[in-house]
Each structure stands twice: as C-alpha cells, then as structure tokens.
C-alpha cells in the first residue's frame, strides 16, 4: 500500500474515494439488476410452476393450461440444432487448426469471416434462413420432387438456421480448445511415426475434449434462447399437436413468451403464465450453461 497517501490533501483523497466508489457502484448496480430480474421472475413465476403447467397443452387462446408443446418444441429444436451444427463446427475447427496452412490467405479469410459473423445480429440469420433454406433449398426440393412440405418454415429449417447462427461460436470455441493442446505433444506423436490423423485422434482430441464439450454446450445454450432468428422460419404460436416430423411447424418457449406478452387477447390474465414460462426458459438455458461449467471444472481436476 502507498505510504504517502496519508499526507495527501483532503480534496485529493475525496476524489480518490469517489473514483473507487463510482466503480464499485457500477459493479453493484449490475449485480443488483441481475438479482432484481431473477427475484422478480422467481417470486411471480414459481407459484404457477407445477407439473400440470409443464405437461399440458395451452387452452383458451393461450390464456390457460400449460406449455408442454413449447417445451417439447424447444427441446427438439435444440437437439436437432446440436446434431446439425456441432459436428460440422468441430470438423471445421479441426480442419482449420490441423490441416489448413496457418498463414494462408484462405485460412485467414475464413477466420476473419467466422469472427465477424459471430457479431452479426441474429435477425440477419433469420433472413438468411428465409432466403437460403426455405426459398432456395426448400423451393428447390419442391421444384424437383414436387414435395411441397420443404417449401415452408419448419422444425428442420429453424434448426438449420440456428445451427448456422451457432456455427461461428462453435468453431471459435473448438479452435481455442485445439490450440490449447501443446505443440510438443503433436510433434512427439508424429516423431513416433503416427500419421496426422492418428495424432489427431489419439493425441489432440483426447486432450481437448473438455474444451470442445464446454464450448459446444455454451454455443448451444446461446441458440436455445434465441428467438429473433426463428421468428419466420417455422415457429408457430399455437399448435394442437407436437411436431411429428422435421417438416412440421413447432412451438418455442421464447416465442411463446413473446406472443403471450405482446399479442395475447388478455395480457393480464396470461401474466402468471408468462412469468412461469420465463422461469422454464431461463432454467433450460442455465441448465446448459451450468452443465458446461460443471464439465469444465470436473475435467480440469482430473
């Protein structure tokens, strides 16, 4: 600590005190806001959260009943998105770190595109979903096979849109995990006569699996709460049945909350449902985040 601070004039010491106080206030304000949000949702949401709410279909124009189709739709969407996005992202990251020449124009431009895409608004990905998946791919399938079911928004196209949205996040996270594996290990493996693929399989991947898992789960967590990107690629606000195939429309917790809060015929009556839905949506995203943190801390110990 500073031995001279006692001799400073009062005004300077006051200034210093306020400088620290302001910074502390900012930090406390952020924590307060967070606690305020969590507290509000918990107090108003938990009384309405029961098994019936989770397991029943909405009734009476979404003002009564439960959220089962939205919960199921969100889960299906997240699963499908993970299946579509994570393997592709991981493969791309492996290619970029292990195969592509590091300083080539190609590798640099891909990395630049990936990094900047991570900051593009999600609504733009929604537009991409409409333009590419539904109109171009779906429309193409429809023209070729006459099968009209792909030419409109669906679970499949929503999952594909979200997979593209999370792709940059997955690639960046996996690349980071792969880079954390020391170069020496790779060189030792290669020196022992292993091929490049054997090195990747037996040395690089086992040593980076923690990072790959946590990064992927965090990316999926980002996709789980995303609403803007799927607004017009297959989500629906009312459905009598669960989606039976990937070309069906589906309900989504976040979209359900949005519709209840802004377009419900009786907003006040639906308010308890909104708080409970918020809690479920938050629970789902936090579950993913906490799983990632848990895996990280657990595997770090070993």
């Amino acid at each position, binding site marked *: 600590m*500073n031995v001279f601070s006692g001799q400073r004039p009062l005004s300077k010491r006051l200034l210093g005190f306020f400088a620290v106080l302001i910074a502390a206030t900012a930090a406390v304000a952020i924590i307060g806001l967070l606690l305020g949000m969590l507290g509000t949702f918990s107090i108003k949401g938990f009384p309405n959260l029961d098994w019936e709410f989770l397991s029943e279909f909405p009734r009476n124009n979404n003002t009564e009943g439960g959220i089962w189709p939205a919960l199921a739709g969100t889960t299906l969407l997240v699963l499908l998105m993970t299946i579509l996005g994570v393997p592709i992202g991981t493969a791309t990251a492996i290619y970029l770190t292990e195969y592509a020449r590091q300083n080539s124009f190609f590798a640099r431009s891909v990395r630049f595109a990936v990094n900047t*895409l*991570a900051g593009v608004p999600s609504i733009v990905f929604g537009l991409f979903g409409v333009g590419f998946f539904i109109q171009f791919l779906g429309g193409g399938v429809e023209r070729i096979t006459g099968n009209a079911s792909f030419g409109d928004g669906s679970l499949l196209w929503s999952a594909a849109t979200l997979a593209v949205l999370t792709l940059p996040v997955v690639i960046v996270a996996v690349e980071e995990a792969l880079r954390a594996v020391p170069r020496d290990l790779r060189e030792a493996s290669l020196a022992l006569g292993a091929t490049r*693929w054997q090195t990747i399989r037996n040395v690089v991947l086992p040593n980076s699996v923690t990072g790959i898992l946590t990064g992927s789960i965090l990316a999926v967590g980002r996709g789980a709460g995303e609403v*803007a990107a799927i607004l017009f690629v297959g989500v629906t606000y009312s459905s009598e049945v669960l989606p039976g195939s990937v070309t069906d429309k589906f309900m989504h917790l976040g979209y359900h909350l949005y519709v209840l809060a802004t377009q419900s015929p009786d907003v006040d009556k639906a308010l308890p449902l909104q708080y409970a839905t*918020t809690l479920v949506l938050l629970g789902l995203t936090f579950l993913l985040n906490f799983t990632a943190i848990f895996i990280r801390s657990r595997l770090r110990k070993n």
Partner: protein
Amino acid sequence: MAVNNPFARKRRHLGEHAAEWTIRIVASFSILVIFLIFIFVFREASSLLTSKSEPAEQPTTNVVATTDDRPEIYNPDSGPEPGSVTTTTTVVKDSDKPEVYNPDVTMVGMDEPVVTTTSIVTLDDRPEVYNPDSGPEPGSVIAAAAAPYEAHEQPTLWDNITSNVWQPVGENPKFGVWPLLIGTLKTTLIAILIGAPLGILAALYSAFFAPRKLREVLKPAIELLAGFPSVVIGFFCLTTVASLLQDITGSQFRLNALIGGIGLSLAVIPIVFTIAEDALSAVPKTLREASLALGSTEWQTAYRVMLPAAAPGVFAAVLLGVGRAFGETMIAIMATGNAPLSSWSPATPARTLAATIGSEMGEVVWGSEHYGVLFLLGIFLFVVSFGLNALTELYVKQRLIKKFQGA
C-alpha cells in the same frame, strides 16, 4: 499443425482416408455456408432492383395484404371463377397481429364470413404466389381496386424509401426509413450511454479495486447476464421496468425509447464488461508497478495509467456494444413501443430497424416490394454490424498488439 512429416504417408488405412476426407468435405461445406450468408441476404433484396423498372405492377400485389402469420397469396391460376370474391376473402384472415388491411379487400370481406380461428392459420402451410400478370377476371373486385393506382403517378422507390413515413401495409405503401433510423439511433444511443459507463466502470472495479471475493461473484454474475435470452430481458422491461418508470416519471407512453434503451443496455453490459476487462488485464503489469512506484495511488493508476493504456480495447468493447444494441431484435420489439415516429425524444415510442424486420417479416407477401425493402434493411444491419466487427478485428486489435509488443 502443418508439420511436414516425411513418414506421414506410411501405414494409412482406408478408415483414416475416409475420416480425413470427411473432415475436409464437412469443413468446406461449413465454409461454403458462411460465404453463402453474404450472397443470399443480398440476393433476396435484389428483387427490388428488378421490380423498379415496372413500378405500375407493384401496387396490385398489395391488394392481397394478408394480416396473417404465414404468407398466403391468392393464386388466380388455381382456378379463378368469374366471381373470384370468395378466393379473395380467404386472404383476409384474422390474427392477433395488428391489422391494417387494404380497405378494398375489407370491403369484399364484409360480404363473406371472415375466418377467425387461429388453428386454421397453421393449416395453410403452402405459400401460394399471386400472379398479377394473369390479370383479374372482368368485373372482379380486384380490377376495380387496381384502377386508381394507374391514375396517379407512382413515385420512384428511392423517393419512397427516403420519405418520412413508414406505413408498409395499405393502399399506398410508404417505406420511409427515416423514422426507423431515428428510432434505431435513439435507442442505441441510450443503451450505450447507460451500458458503456456501467460496463467499463465495473470492469475497472473488477480488475483493480475489488476484493477477491466480490470479483468471484461479479464475473459469474456477468456471465449469467450474458446467458439471459433477449426475449426474457424484453419481457422484464415490458412488465417491470416500464411500470416502475411510468410510476416515477408519469410519462405519457408506457413503452418508450428510454425503456427500450435500458433493456438494450442490459444486453450491452456483458459484452462491454468482458472485453474491457480483458483489455485492462492485458496491460502489462510493469506499467502499473511503475506508476505505483512513482507515488501515485491505486485509483490514479487505474484511471490515469491503465485505462488510457487499454483505450483501444475499451474502444473495441464500446464498438461491439454498439453493434449488439443496434441489431438486437426481441428487446427492441417488446420494450420500445414499436411505433415508427420521427421524434428524437426518449419519452416517445421508437421502432428500430431490427424490430421492423422482426415484426413485419412474418406477415409480408414473399417476393413483394415490402419483402424486398425488409431485406434491404437486413442488408443495412448486416453491413453495419459486420463493419463494426471488422473494424475492431482489423484495426483495434492490431493497435493493441503493436502497443504492447515492446512492453
């Protein structure tokens, strides 16, 4: 690692080849998708440019102003009978969305029962395309509706876009983007004015002043905040913050740009905090030690040495925060009041570009002029946020590296 291994070719099994080639193919596929994003967002708006040459045709499309969730378009090819009134009325569907339909269509709709069940809406999965070229049957209502458009002169698309009114659905659609731009700038500015100081000060506190225990609470708390889905933040502002602020200020509008700005700042804070904190802790320790050794206090060091040294990183944090606030959709839709007004006052409702796309894209006729304009707004969002990211990526990071390389 591209290590050149002379022995790499020996002992390769078929499985290995398959695995390597799968990785290559999948990787090139995802890289292709990344570049396709650039192409396709632009491609959809390009329909605007082609339609510009035949403006007389455009208004007819708007006769079929659907208020529905899904686009459905009346298709005369599928068998239009002379009294095609029935087909037209099915277009007028009721839904929960705000309804502004063409008066001509409503006129027709009054003869027929308007379908109001929402369950039916989901049944129409197939978008049909209305083809104005095939021409309405003689004596049908559409012909009468289309007639007035040919009478007066249609302003060019550019004049329309630069006008002051955003009223995309109606007899004479107006696509003036000024109200949207003002709304976007207004809310983004409020969000940054609240979010950036909070985020930077909290980062300073966490990096230099905080006791270790508090830091261990602060960082996960920010991570938690970053994990909040934006629809949840929007909902919180819509219900709690809006009521609270109206009680305090007695404002005329319950939802306004200030509420939206507060909501957006909640999305901005985690970004600003994380990047600013990274930048602050990346400043070499020697700078701090030198400053302290010269007799300055902890706060003087933090504010006058460390913060200026990390300035490019902090600047990058603010830029990325701007990008986030600028493109955020759900919070903007739910908390700003969503009315396209040309007012700079924070107490009036606002509508951002992203919110416009989000709330109108679902109801628009695919391929119409309105659709093209929405994609144009999307391109604008894309280009600006991409530019902000590219700027931080290329310029700010380079400067940071240069600055600390010698240290």
